[in-house]
């Protein structure tokens, strides 16, 4: 048999079995891999422009708190997170938008008009009007939205929200 230049019957059957087996393995195996890695392949859209309302609502020089919520869906579970930002409007109508989360241990800071600082209720950290650390344990200034993450359209203020 092996002397003939043609493929033997046994060899042919082995080849066909191997080929059909490989095709069947791929047909079953690839969907199985897709099934297992599926959640990692889905892109969740969490970035968005958040409207903060008309700019006139924000008095010049006085940090004003704006609260908003963002919902996040993981599988079948929906989580709603609340966020707060302090909007500081400047006389030239430019704005500084600061996160109200203390950079020390993530407590929410409050604006204290008498002292002109943000005070963290947890460890008495103080931040200035532009977010810089005035005293206390925080390692860095309050997080702020960069100028390209803030826009004013038709007198309405927007911030570009990105998940931290």
């Amino acid at each position, binding site marked *: 048999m092996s002397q003939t230049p043609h493929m033997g019957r046994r060899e042919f059957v082995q080849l066909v079995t191997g080929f059909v087996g490989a095709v069947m393995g791929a047909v079953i195996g690839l*969907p*199985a891999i*897709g*099934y*297992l*890695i*599926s*959640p990692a*392949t*889905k892109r969740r859209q969490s970035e968005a422009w958040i409207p903060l309302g008309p700019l006139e609502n924000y008095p010049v020089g006085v940090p004003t708190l704006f609260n908003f919520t963002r919902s996040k869906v993981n*599988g*079948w*579970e929906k989580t709603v997170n609340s966020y707060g930002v302090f909007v500081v409007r400047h006389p030239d109508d430019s704005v500084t938008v600061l996160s109200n989360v203390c950079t020390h241990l993530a407590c929410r800071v409050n604006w204290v008009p008498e002292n002109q600082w943000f005070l963290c209720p947890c460890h008495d950290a103080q931040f200035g009007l532009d977010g810089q650390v005035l005293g206390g344990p925080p390692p860095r200034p309050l997080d702020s939205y960069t100028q390209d993450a803030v826009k004013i359209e038709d007198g309405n203020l927007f911030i570009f929200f990105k998940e931290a």
Partner: protein
Amino acid sequence: MSTWQKLLNWFDERLGLTTIYSTVLDRKVPKVNWWFTLGSASMILFLLQGVTGVMLTVYYVPSPDHAYDSINYIMNEVAFGWLIRGIHHWGASLMVLVVFAHMLRTFYFGAFKYPRELTWITGVFLLLCTVGMGFTGYLLPWNQRAFWATTVGTSIAGAVPFVGEFINEVLRGGTDLSALTLARFFSVHIWWLPAAIIALIGVHMYMIIRLGISSVPTKED
């Protein structure tokens, strides 16, 4: 001798692979017909249910708050989730059918007779386990049909004289269907019954390999 052959021999010398192969697969069998393939079909279906079942546990959550939603997620969001669950769903019905047909063939061909009585008896338990898998698996989607089917099914157990009510409460994990019922049905479905089935298949197969299979009965039988 090729490298491949050398490698194979190295393992064979230590593991006895060819002995296993010849004992398990190169057995002498009488001339039989297609009805004799139902046992193998049952085992292949069990393996299929096992593999797809393991895959489903990646996403399924056995809790009243999440069971239905997690299955919705599998069906609508996960890539090929519909396929994996579909195979598990239809494979379950098919397995009950094939196992039952396998039992009928054994019965009508008299294959349960000496010396194969114990093979038959383990087979009886395998049939019961298969039905048990169907019963416990039916509750897991936690939809209306599942809930009320299990309510009726466990109530039937409650009809047993004297101890019925107790059996019912053990099955449900309380007087009503609850999170406890779902959790224990899930446990039985993925741990207890599969373990029992694997053990029983082991014994069943050992006896088939040891005793060989019976031939198709003739007029003289």
